[in-house]
């Protein structure tokens, strides 16, 4: 009888251990976080709160980006009534994927549409407001903003990619952009977005095709890992991620073409078209590579 009691006790303990294992939060350890970091995040309330604070501050700073770009003026999307009158939002895409946006009319209406009388007149003079089409301040002003943002949150990938784009394009300082991205890649070794932008900067500004190909090939591999991890959670890339991956394949194929590795360029295009069937520029690049191959190169 006593032995039966011991057996029942042992079985109970075993069952409890199994249940505890099943019920405990299961953290997926991947390249982004070390097991020790998971453990610390799991156990430390202070660490968790500080992490949340860091995310909130960096998100707030990211939201401020557009406010700074618009000199404090708030724009909104047009209402149904305004659309019917032919007023539409203007698209601004030439300033990096992360800050591409649409600007409709200003939130504070102009005199002709304002129902607020004297209050509206006061509002237009107190708050930043300007008649006419949306205007942007010099995007270079945002460079220090991105530099501070990554001090607050070194894992804010968009800040690295947009900051590097502004440094290289608007400020004409590609060295600064490259160094900014290299620092970002060191802190975010899993980010395909950073490697992809790095590859593009090597390609566009330095004409260093070997370095570009290496960074872009790494970007493609990291993107595959990321996509697999998302698929396990039944999620997919968003539009921006798909666009970045499409560009990574395209510029990898272009780098290989520039290096005369035409077979590899065609293989990259094939792989890219399989992964992203709507990435049409890869078809064009494939035709270019085939033409050069049949023309006697490679």
């Amino acid at each position, binding site marked *: 009888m006593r032995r039966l009691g011991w057996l029942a006790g042992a079985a109970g303990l075993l069952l409890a251990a199994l249940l505890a294992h099943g019920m405990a939060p299961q953290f997926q350890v991947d390249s982004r976080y070390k097991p020790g970091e998971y453990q610390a995040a799991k156990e430390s309330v202070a660490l968790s709160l500080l992490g949340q604070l860091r995310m909130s501050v960096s998100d707030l700073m990211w939201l*401020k980006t557009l406010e*700074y770009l618009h*000199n*404090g003026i*708030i724009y*909104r999307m047009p*209402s*149904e*009534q*305004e659309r019917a009158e032919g007023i539409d939002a203007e698209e601004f895409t030439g300033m990096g994927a992360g800050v591409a946006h649409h600007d409709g009319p200003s*939130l*504070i*209406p102009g005199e002709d549409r304002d*129902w*607020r009388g*004297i*209050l509206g*007149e*006061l*509002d237009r*003079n*107190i*708050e*930043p407001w300007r008649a006419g089409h949306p205007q942007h*301040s010099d995007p270079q*002003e945002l*460079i*220090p*903003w991105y*530099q*501070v943002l990554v*001090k607050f949150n070194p894992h804010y990938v968009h800040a690295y990619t947009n900051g590097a784009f502004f440094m290289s394009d608007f400020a004409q300082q590609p060295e600064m952009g490259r160094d900014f991205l290299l620092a970002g890649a060191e802190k975010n070794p899993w980010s395909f977005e950073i490697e992809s932008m790095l590859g593009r900067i090597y390609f566009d500004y330095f004409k260093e095709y070997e370095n570009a190909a290496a960074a872009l090939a790494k970007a493609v591999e990291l993107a595959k890992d990321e996509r697999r991890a998302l698929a396990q959670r039944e999620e997919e890339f968003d539009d921006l991620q798909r666009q970045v991956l499409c560009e990574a394949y395209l510029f990898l194929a272009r780098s290989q073409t520039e290096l005369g590795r035409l077979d590899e360029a065609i293989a990259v295009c094939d792989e890219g078209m399989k992964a992203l069937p709507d990435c049409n520029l890869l078809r064009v690049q494939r035709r270019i590579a085939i033409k050069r191959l049949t023309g006697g190169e490679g």
Partner: protein
Amino acid sequence: MRNGLRKTGTVARVAVLESIRRKDPYVVLILGAAMVLGAGLFSHFGVEGLEKFVKDVGLTVTTVFSIVICVVAAARQLPAEIENRTLYPSLGKPISRTGFYLGKYVGVGLMSSAVVVAFFLLLRILLLVFGISVGGVFYQALYLRVLSMWFVAAGVLCLSLFVTHSANVTISLLACMGMQIVAHSILYVHDELTGVSLRLAEAVYWVAPHLELFDLSKKVIHGWPPVPWWALAGMTLYAVVYAGLFFTVGCARFRRMPL
């Protein structure tokens, strides 16, 4: 008349001294030191070109904490006097309830205005140290912020006679911080509204006290030119009308209150 004003002035002086005794204004110095420390951190980062950011942080801190100090000080004036029974000996002296109420209002207004001036002075010194220029709109922002303190003080003092202290502080802070959100939300959805909802939204917009119209922070941050004088005059009139309305309602309630 002159005697009555002197007594009102004494009540105001006591209200200011009480705030100093409670160390409210010292909060200004502590927060100012925090601001300097924060800005120092940015220079430590070695990042140049953050003028807008430093101005943004400084003015946001100034706005939030000056409103908090004003609301907290105004909300406790009358309930504390009633609760501690210090109101009775005061009213026992030859001073009218109106004079007493006015004294409290002037005391809170003066103390809050002094806090705002101290904040702006500290911010100006900080900006000078960092070589960040500000135009005339900075001083206009100071004027409107001081004006808003009298506006807020009148509202909170009035509300303190209708609701409990904690409810007053909560409602007042929410109203002060959330007024811009309400006003912007109405502007966002106005074109989509029709019928009763449209009339209601417009009525709310017209009746609600627009504290956000006293905020020139964005113009200072983004280097806009000064606003026209008539807009400042308009805001002064707006503040006088609303503060007068709050004062009249509050004073009427205080005069009829059974003590």
